[in-house]
């Protein structure tokens, strides 16, 4: 089974709108492989507003988004639609 490549983005300590712009930049960079399901983008942030802005934009762009809360930060996983 092919394992998906993961692009990790660490934006801990950053606030919006920088968080959103950084996440969008990465999605733009990898969008072709993201759409094909070859890669997934995982954003780590401790800025709560980013858990709203990043998923909202990524979903509008046609991706699936999962938000998970860990002890110290949020993990936003962006993948291709089924």
């Amino acid at each position, binding site marked *: 089974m092919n394992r998906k490549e993961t692009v990790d983005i660490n934006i801990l300590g950053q606030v*919006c*709108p*920088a968080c*959103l*712009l950084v996440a*969008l*930049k990465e*999605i*733009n960079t990898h*969008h072709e492989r993201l759409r094909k399901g070859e890669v997934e983008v995982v954003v780590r942030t401790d800025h709560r*507003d980013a858990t*709203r*802005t990043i998923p*909202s*934009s990524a979903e*509008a*762009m*046609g991706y699936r988004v999962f938000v998970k809360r860990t002890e110290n930060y949020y993990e936003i996983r962006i993948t291709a639609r089924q």
Partner: protein
Amino acid sequence: MKVPDPISLQTENRHLKVLNKRYIQYIREKVNQLLEVMGTQPLKPEELDDETLLEFDPIGIVAGAFQQILEHLRQTNRELELARDELQAIFNATGVGISIIDSDFRIIRCNEKQRQMLVSEPSEDIRGRFCYEVYCYKDSPGLDCPAVETLATGRAVTLREVKKKDKYFQVVTTPLKDHEGRTKGVIEVLIDVTEKKKAEELMLRTEKMVSLGQMSAGIAHELNTPLGSILGYSRLLLKDKNLTEKQIEWLGIIAEQTKRCSRIIKGLLDFARLPEETPVGRCDVNCAINSAVELLKKEALKRKIRIETELNNVPIVRGSQSEIEQVFINILLNALQAIGKDGRVHIRTYNEDQMVVAEFKDTGPGIPESIRHRIFDPFFTTKPVGEGTGLGLSISSGIVNRIGGTIEVVNSPEEGSIFRVRLVADA
């Protein structure tokens, strides 16, 4: 080459700096405008200095995101169009009628089947018209309308049987809800259950016939012996020379009425006869009709009734020639009795699918709807007491059903009744 004047250079430099600041300000405003569209906060100058701003290229980033949003929207539109086309195809291809009706009872749309079943003019544009006008020919929704209940309660309603255009339908209404769960309309599904209902009625009739047949056979068998004795002893008594004229007359009546009882019993036995007792033969329908007409010609003449025949080229059918003749005699005799005097019976034969149809159309008074389902029941008669046994049509129905055929009766749109006997063509 001319060396630039330092003062003018300084002036130009200041001018360019002002311009630069204005351009950066413009870019920041546009960036913030785009960020607002994306649902986030504006970018503060202290977060990103001018140089980093240009290097980071937020406008390019948002433009890239917009490009993907557009791509996704286009893809979604294509998928929606495909889904809509598929849904439309299913909507039109389904064997049930479907209408979508709004809360004011106006038809938003309906499928082809619904049109075929209930709309008089196939080309008529019914969108926007009231469903009760188009489907029910009323000027307001009926009290028993399931759509009224669904709109009021928000629940699905099933109306088991409703008659429209001489057909029976089952109607199911399901609520159409908006985002907030409020009922904004009704999806009405119409299922034609006419054939199912006919089959159920036939089954019920057959079951009734079978049990009546069994009972009749039992009674007939029990009565035959005592009736034989009555007839025998009355004939013996008639030979007695000491009888008065009055007594001879009374004995004659006893013997005659006993014979009448025997005829009724024979009819009962014919009705109750089991299928395996009669081998299925072959019958020429046109020939059977001619024989029946020949037999009843005098009776028709006496009643001043004209019998017309329109006998087309039809195949031989399954069934005994004499039994089918008996069926046609019964139907024709019934027609003559129904007309009474002065009228016409039109008999026509034709092919219909794999069946041969013999149609008897009379100019009598027709059969009231309330008794139409009973006319094939044994002993059911509308004739005065003593004139009919009520067995003719039930025996006919038994004969026809036994050989895989059907008898139906409808009232003619003009006048009188139409009996249609459908018989299976012998392959």
